[in-house]
């Protein structure tokens, strides 16, 4: 269970958001809404332990999650607004690192996002949507219980969104949690919405 208590983020001199609190049970999903610049990406990076909150606490099963950020990192699979792909490596090679960490199968993750035929292509040859799918395949490879997704549908076609929906449901059925920042509706049943207002 992930619980946020009064999280506040300040970048430079600017207050991004304050007093963000929520509880996310196992199998739960949370959608972050809000205008551009409202701090959705910052909140996701904060939940990943990459950024420290300026006030408030983040609790994982009632213990401070950010006490050991390395350990917390292993609980998290992050899809940032960048795809974090290496253009010179093939699609399959781009996933090799994540697969090695989790011990899962690259082929299965590629199949889940309909990328099998592109497996041997260098990532630089992929289209924007295909790159996004590859980045999503990396998330699905990880054994982390908490998925943090920043605009996961960016550049995806309808069929890919359906596949994403299937992955999200499967992850939640296995007790996983999802926090997603998005402007479009995501196939997340019973998800709560947290609206961030630009401060």
């Amino acid at each position, binding site marked *: 269970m992930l619980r946020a208590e009064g999280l506040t983020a300040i970048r430079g001199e600017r207050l991004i958001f304050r007093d963000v609190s929520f509880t996310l049970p196992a199998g739960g999903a949370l959608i972050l809404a809000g205008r551009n610049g409202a701090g959705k990406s910052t909140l996701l990076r904060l939940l990943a332990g990459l950024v420290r909150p300026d006030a408030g606490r983040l609790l994982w099963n009632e213990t401070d999650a950010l006490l050991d950020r*390395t*350990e917390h990192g292993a609980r998290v699979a992050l899809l940032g607004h*960048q795809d974090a792909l290496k253009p*010179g490596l093939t699609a399959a090679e781009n996933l090799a690192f994540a697969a090695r*960490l989790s011990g899962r199968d690259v082929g299965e993750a590629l199949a889940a996002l309909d990328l099998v035929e592109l497996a041997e292509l260098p990532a630089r040859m992929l289209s924007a949507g295909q790159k996004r799918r590859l980045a999503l395949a990396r998330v699905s490879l990880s054994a982390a219980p908490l998925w943090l997704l920043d605009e996961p549908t960016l550049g995806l076609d309808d069929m890919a969104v359906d596949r994403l929906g299937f992955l999200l449901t499967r992850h939640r059925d296995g007790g996983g949690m999802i926090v997603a920042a998005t402007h479009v509706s995501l196939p997340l049943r019973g998800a709560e919405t947290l609206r961030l207002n630009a401060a």
Partner: protein
Amino acid sequence: MTGMIAILSRELRLSVRHGADTLAALLFFLLIVSLFPFAIGPAPETLGRMAPGIIWVSALLSAFLSLDRLFGADFEDGSLDQLLLSGVPGIGIAAAKTLAHWIVTGLPLLLAAAPLAVMLRMPEDAIPALLAGLLPGTALLSLFGATGAAIVVGARRAGMLLPLLVLPLVTPVLIFGVAAADAAATGQSPRPHLLLLAALLMGALPLCPLAAGVALRGAAE
């Protein structure tokens, strides 16, 4: 440990795929060293006398070529976040990256130094001392260099800042490295200089990855 090996193998695979970048440091090293005989004349006594300095300075500059990409590329495309979330502590990430840099840059420089020393007519007795100095020397360049690279990652003009930050740190390495080869060339023992280099290495081995790891966490914030 599994995570560190995974990072190391990822780095090495990337180096193989970006072969041109990988070879750039070695080619640069061969080129600058080869320019010296043209610039200062082919007289063996002058060249042989200057050879240790030429090789050391050239190796040092060559090792810098790829440094700002060591973490810079991962920072720009978001891979650094993925590394930091891999469950490997910052010190482990930095250590694996540093080792990869040494294998890809330091080791080839070390191997190329022997034929270049012969080319510059360096006294034969001094060549083992030169190589014995370059072994910890190149490792120190990778360690200090990676630390500097981790500190400037994300900064504007990181490529400019990096030499300013790291060159003063590696000056002692240069001094002792050249002194070891010079001592051997003049019939003295290179041992004290080599021991000092080894001592520097023993200090840098734990401290540099530690500092670099903390800097990487800071860069991601």
